[in-house]
């Protein structure tokens, strides 16, 4: 019984059979930058970049080797003084808008940004008309009653 439990616990420690490389992670995959300001910039960017392997996680959240390699790229480039948005643009150039979690205003996406403004304006116009009419109607009934 106890031996069975120990074997089960050992099985938990066994490496998964799925294909994974055995190389140590890239230098900056799990190591923060020394400069806290730069690390903050890198962290903010990494939270908004999509992992290419596990597609619903950001590279900051993912333990996939490729996400580690992407973090390494991001941190190395930020350490070298590159602007975070330039790094985002570099990745978008290769993988499309898809790789960024922060939507960009483009020829295709501008309606998404314009729609709320248009709807708000429309709502204001409709509300003005409706309430204006009710007020006028209310005034009429009030006059009719008196």
């Amino acid at each position, binding site marked *: 019984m106890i031996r069975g439990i120990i074997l089960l616990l050992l099985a938990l420690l066994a490496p998964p059979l799925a294909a994974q490389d055995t*190389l140590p992670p*890239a230098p900056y995959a799990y190591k923060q930058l020394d400069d806290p300001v730069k690390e903050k910039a890198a962290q903010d960017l990494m939270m908004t970049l999509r992992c*290419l*392997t596990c*597609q619903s996680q950001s590279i900051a959240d993912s333990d996939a080797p490729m996400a580690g*390699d992407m973090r390494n790229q991001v941190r190395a480039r930020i350490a070298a003084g590159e602007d975070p948005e330039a790094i985002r643009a570099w990745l978008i*150039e*290769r*993988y*499309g808008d898809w790789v960024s979690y922060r939507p960009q205003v483009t020829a295709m996406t501008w309606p998404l940004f314009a729609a709320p403004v248009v709807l708000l304006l429309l709502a204001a116009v409709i509300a003005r008309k409706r309430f204006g009419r009710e007020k006028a109607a209310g005034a009429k009934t009030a006059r009719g009653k008196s």
Partner: protein
Amino acid sequence: MKHWAIWLPLAMFGVLFAVFASGLLAPADRTIASQMIGKPLPAFDLPQAVPDRPAVSLANFTDGKPRLLNVFASWCVPCVAEAPYLAQLANAGVEINGVAIRDRQPDVAAFLLRNGNPYARIGADDVSKIQFDLGSSGVPETFVIDGKGIITYQHIGDIRPEHVSMILQKLKEAQ
């Protein structure tokens, strides 16, 4: 309210139902196509992966002859599956330059010994940098590079028997 308007909510429900049902029945395509097709291969210079094959750099793709750039790894299972078809392409006279992703030299050597070595050159990339250069998101992937270093085609996943003639055609088009 007009008479027909009472059916509007049901109609909207029907539309939403159709949208969700089609999403469930035909799940979205999750492959990530590279946006680098038609663009020049970015400069790179990788060290040798195994002693019996020279290293790879951008200069090896700009001598006028179209080639394949294949990213693979010894730890990648589909790479084993595509090995015979890469060999078939190599036998047809195609020059294939390989890049081993996040791999160790003895592992690459053992992989090539077991599955054959169709590569003219093999570079080693320990931090997947070449994949970010190519817009590649996994292994294996195969790129057709024309003689001037322009990426003309990306094949995602392992090369299967039905892809061989298509890739030969893409290489011919890149000439």
